[in-house]
């Protein structure tokens, strides 16, 4: 099992569940444990859809291919099973849960990771939460706010990584976590992700972004270009710089 890639996507195709809109078109991608990969690509190319399909979003239907997580097929698993198996997605558009504090939410999420009859140690939880809040440089009162309710765009993104810091996934998919963050916040959040990666070098990270700037802070091992539902090119960090200069002109799907 240790030889298996963290994520091995083969010929993955997916469409919108109730419609004939195909988005992912036989996509291939492999991430080894501990690697950091970045996906860049034009608006509407299917980056978020890929993330959501990997997380098991019910709006999409897989029409072909396979996605293996540490050698285990993901596609038949429920979204919560995937989460419990260690997959985390930071949402491009985090969802509001009015009336539920971040602390309460995270406590429930950690409790869900324990077996039946096991009680979460609340002191440990407090410590974990405080540590995560320190890492992301938020006030302790932040955890008492209702999840994403009334948050600024940047606060929502920071909250996603705060959750990642507490839940400690082994595969984290970060969908445009950088967009909406100001320059200082980008640094804090990136630093947070780097620290988590240092603490757990086996953690695999898939970054979806439009901006090369993020990759100055979080150094990817590989950069992929996604266009029209598939990966059209893979390279090292230099590829991001090239894209920054040239854009996606070379890959515009022929229409």
């Amino acid at each position, binding site marked *: 099992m240790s030889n298996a890639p963290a994520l091995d996507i083969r010929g993955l195709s997916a469409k919108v569940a109730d419609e004939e809109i195909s988005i992912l078109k036989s996509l291939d991608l492999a991430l080894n444990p501990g690697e950091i990969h970045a996906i860049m690509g034009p608006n509407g190319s299917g980056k978020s859809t890929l993330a959501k399909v990997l997380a098991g979003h019910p709006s999409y239907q897989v029409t072909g291919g396979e996605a293996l997580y540490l050698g285990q097929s993901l596609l038949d698993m429920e979204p919560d099973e995937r989460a419990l198996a260690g997959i985390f997605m930071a949402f491009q558009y985090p969802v509001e849960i009015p009336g*539920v504090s971040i602390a309460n939410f995270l406590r*429930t999420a950690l409790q869900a990771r324990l077996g039946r009859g096991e009680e979460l140690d609340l002191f440990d939880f407090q410590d974990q939460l405080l540590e995560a809040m320190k890492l992301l440089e938020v006030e302790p009162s932040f955890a008492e706010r209702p999840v994403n309710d009334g948050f600024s765009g940047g606060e929502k993104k920071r909250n996603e990584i705060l959750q990642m810091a507490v839940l400690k996934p082994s595969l984290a998919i970060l969908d445009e976590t950088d967009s909406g963050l100001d320059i200082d916040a980008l640094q804090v959040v990136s630093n947070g992700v780097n620290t988590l990666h240092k603490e757990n070098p086996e953690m695999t990270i898939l970054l979806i972004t439009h901006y090369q700037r993020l990759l100055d802070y979080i150094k990817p091992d590989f950069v992929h270009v996604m266009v029209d539902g598939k990966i059209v090119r893979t390279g090292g960090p230099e590829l991001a710089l090239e894209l920054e200069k040239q854009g996606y002109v070379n890959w515009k799907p022929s229409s």
Partner: protein
Amino acid sequence: MPESKLVDNLDLDNYKYGFVDSESHVYRTKPGLDESIVRDISRQKEEPDWMLQFRLKAFKIYESKPMPTWGGDLSDLEATLDEIYFYVKPQEQTERSWEDVPDKIKNTFERLGIPEAEQKSLAGVGAQYESEMVYHSLKEEWASKGVIFDSIEDGLKNHPELFKEHFGTVIPIADNKFSALNAAVWSGGSFVYIPKGVHLDTPLQAYFRVNQEKMGQFERTLIIVEEGAHATYVEGCTAPVYSTDSFHSGVIEIVVKKDARFRYTTIQNWSNNMYNLVTQRAVVQENATMEWLDGNLGSKLTMKYPSCYLMGKGAHGSIMSIAYAGPGQHQDTGGKVVHAAENTTSSIISKSISKEDGRSTYRGLCKVHEGAKGSRSNVECDALLINDTSRTDTYPYIEVDEKQANVGHEATVSKVGDEQLFYLKNRGLSEEEAMGLVVRGFLEPIAKELPLEYAVELNRLIEMEMEGSVG
């Protein structure tokens, strides 16, 4: 809490109070209602003649009024009323010491956690079983300050002047068909008097239990809060699950005098065969505050609109309610505020949840009389639907006869969103856990006002109710 043997009734959502005791009573009237039963109840209670006359008059009014058709479905109620027992006397007297309550009744309340609750910090505890208060106690500390917390019968017996001065003044007999019915056959309930300036720092609590099948419970509570006094009162209600319908129709009258503050909290968790038609109203005098906190979780049909009549300048009324309409249930609830003096303020916050074919209705009235200058009222009702088959309706009536008044109304209907569920599942929560969390979050603004045990209980209930709610 001790293990309780649940009545095996799977389609009633794990109702944990559904256990039943064997029937026992020292007296009960024959099923149905006629004038002789009204007389009999009065005789059993050895009442003064004025009360008998009051009851007889009420009975006539009850008979003359048609069944209301504007609210929930009462079409089967007439038949039910012919079959139920209007008066069931479980024991001879109201006990002051828990030890003296008959074992069987005591066990019931112990299973419901009542004496436990008493040991926690409560100023006083009352327990009603069938038609009578079987137990009433008040801490000496408060009794010595002149606080009265008695069964309503003892109130009439021991404090006749005070009783007569207020009884039936807040809710007149003819207010509605069920207030008339209650006035005719009332039995049990509390009589509460908080003397001038006394601040109770812990709540008075009353517990209502119906055990007998085909039972009608008609408690009547009268609360007088003197000038500058502060107190809170909490009531809880449960019943076993029977295949036949039962009936509960209480009347609660409250007088909150100048500068006083009073909060009345109800957690109604009747079984799903209960008609629960309650009239509760407070008269609020100058600069006084009345708060209703109303949780309606059980019953087949609840029709209940706590109301505040703001009679004195600067009086404030607040009504916060939670309604949960599970499968087959209809919660027709809301609130009523009447602004009859200058600078009175009120707020109604109502939150309802409907699951499967459950139906919740918000029905509210805000009336501002001419001359009630500077009055302000705000109504907010939010409905949350769990399934596509769930239903909610809103009937906000607003009558403003004063130009210098400000009345706001806001209503929202939301469905537990797929994106919310997905987000929570992505963090490892199961469908049920996710649903439960969204629902709890929705209720949070009101739940945080509840006494701790009730808030915990509410959360536990919501969790249970969300099991198998996959929508």
